[in-house]
């Protein structure tokens, strides 16, 4: 509820006798108007413009400046950014303070790159840029700022990209720093946005590792599901779900791809790693995940693992496509069942969408060859409409039943509570 809403609405409440004038004053006092920012917008814009002008002068003359001047400029910018950040933090302006600290971190990376370029120096490993990740992770522990936790994760992904693409090696140190350093920072102070970005960053690095080592792409799911299993062990539910989101999306897209293109043995052949090694690794991660789920009482989410069933070992062709479809249906069904049990509207929507997608894939796979095109689309449309109507009805009934059992107070549940999925 915003202050403005309170200001405009509360006189009517007093008039209607809902609250007294004194209570109104106390409510208004409880939500004070936002403090005017110490740095207003105009000075900020002005300083950005000044900064840009200085930056463009330096950039235009960069190559003709003497080496020492260039080095001095980099070092003084670095020091100034950190000093400014500390200054604003001491004055209590956290946003500007943390922004400047983040700028200092970025300037550090830029300084490493520009100094190497200054001396036309070639490094053959990532150690130069690794320092950037190290400093980023350390800074994220020193300050209480979401942005400063996100920065080293993004920097780690960028450094790893450079390392694999330009240097042709995978930097395990970078991966470890982000996974353990930023991971532990998140573990201590869970946050959903950090969780999503962290999982995405780690998945990105895992994908680079697979691409570089020319491994079968299914190996990607070992590190990805390790991230998922880590989520299982985290005590906080929303943060752990946020961490598990990206690995699950990846696994789902993979299963979908298998259902769509798995028929050709050529594609399935690209996916088959050595059976024992892959299944052994996957089973180890699975055991870790199950142990976590049991520890935290979340065994209901176990069907997530359906997506990881290694169906690609089946011979290619129709059996593989159909087996994958069965898995997709089972997964969508499990999400729906779980949502019905918990009565979570978002989960219900998600389950419905997954169910519709599985049906569409099944329909495209199985009937395209047999039906006339117009009939194909007609039947498909009718099928989807019927199904969405049926699922929505069921959801509404379920939610209504859930609300009715919960609501024992004098106020009956309003109809608007029941249909967030509609």
């Amino acid at each position: 509820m915003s202050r403005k809403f309170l200001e405009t609405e509360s006189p009517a409440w007093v008039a209607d006798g809902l609250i007294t004038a004194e209570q109104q004053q106390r409510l208004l006092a409880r939500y004070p108007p936002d403090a005017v920012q110490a740095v207003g917008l105009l000075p900020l814009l002005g300083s950005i413009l000044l900064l840009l002008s200085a930056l463009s002068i330096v950039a235009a003359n960069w190559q003709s400046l003497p080496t020492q001047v260039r080095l001095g400029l980099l070092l003084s910018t670095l020091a100034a950014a950190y000093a400014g950040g500390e200054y604003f933090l001491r004055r209590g302006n956290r946003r500007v303070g943390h922004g400047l600290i983040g700028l200092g971190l970025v300037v550090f990376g830029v300084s490493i790159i520009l100094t190497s370029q200054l001396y036309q120096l070639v490094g053959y490993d990532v150690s130069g840029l690794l320092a950037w990740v190290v400093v980023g992770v350390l800074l994220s522990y020193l300050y209480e700022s979401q942005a400063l936790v996100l920065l080293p994760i993004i920097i780690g992904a960028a450094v790893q990209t450079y390392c694999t693409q330009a240097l042709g090696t995978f930097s395990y140190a970078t991966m470890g720093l982000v996974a353990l350093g930023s991971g532990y920072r998140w573990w201590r102070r869970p946050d959903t946005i950090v969780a999503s970005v962290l999982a995405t960053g780690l998945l990105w690095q895992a994908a680079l590792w697979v691409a570089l080592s020319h491994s079968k792409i299914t190996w990607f799911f070992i590190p990805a599901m390790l991230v998922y299993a880590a989520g299982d062990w985290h005590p906080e539910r929303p943060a752990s779900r946020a961490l598990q989101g990206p690995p699950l999306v990846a696994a789902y897209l993979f299963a979908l791809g298998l259902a769509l293109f798995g028929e050709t043995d050529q594609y399935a052949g690209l996916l088959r790693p050595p059976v024992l090694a892959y299944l052994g690794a996957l089973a180890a991660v699975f055991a870790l995940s199950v142990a976590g789920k049991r520890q935290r009482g979340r065994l209901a989410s176990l069907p997530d693992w359906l997506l990881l069933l290694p169906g690609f070992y089946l011979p290619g062709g129709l059996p593989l496509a159909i087996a994958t479809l069965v898995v997709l249906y089972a997964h969508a069904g499990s999400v729906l069942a779980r949502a019905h049990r918990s009565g979570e509207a978002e989960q219900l929507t998600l389950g419905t969408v997954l169910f519709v997608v599985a049906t569409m894939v099944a329909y495209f796979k199985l009937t395209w060859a047999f039906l006339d095109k117009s009939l194909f689309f007609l039947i498909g449309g009718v099928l989807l409409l019927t199904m969405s109507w049926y699922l929505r009805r069921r959801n509404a009934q379920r939610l209504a039943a859930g609300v009715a059992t919960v609501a024992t107070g004098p106020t009956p549940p309003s109809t608007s509570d029941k249909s967030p999925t509609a």
Partner: protein
Amino acid sequence: MPTRSTPSHRMLVRLLVAAQLLYVLGVAGAGYATTAYGQHIILATSPVDLHGLQYESFVRLRYTIAEAPLTAWRGPTSPQRRQSVYVLLSTGADSLAAVVGVYEAAPRPTAGQAVLRGWVTDVFPRTLGLRYNLERYYVPGDSPLRLGKTSPAVRVRVSIAPWGQARIERVELFKPTAVR
């Protein structure tokens, strides 16, 4: 995790900033040290296209050693694209460096030889395409390349540090009469 500005927190921040400043200085120091303690070789290039210099601050150098015959490959397995390699170069007293062999693991150079690290860019039926990360040359303001002669051939002086880093020391216009 400290949120307030306690003395120990401030101390840590100062240490961290000082470490960053020292690190950048260290990178610069590595640049000087590579020239001071490194082995110097001279590389030939094909004519350099200077047109890009109007818009950018660097030119692209195409080294003659960027292509090696496949027979120079010394490795247990056949070379793969993007693989990192060690290129053994022979350096005469004043002559240009030429590829002796391309290795997967670091070879031991004898007198008159140097090892430059690089990456395989292409594997052709008879030749190997190589990259040294020295291809992009940021032309200083006082370089003769700035005088705008079209497509000169150049000689590139490269120093290779004992610890493996390499840098372009300088780029000279190749004129038999007016070297340096």
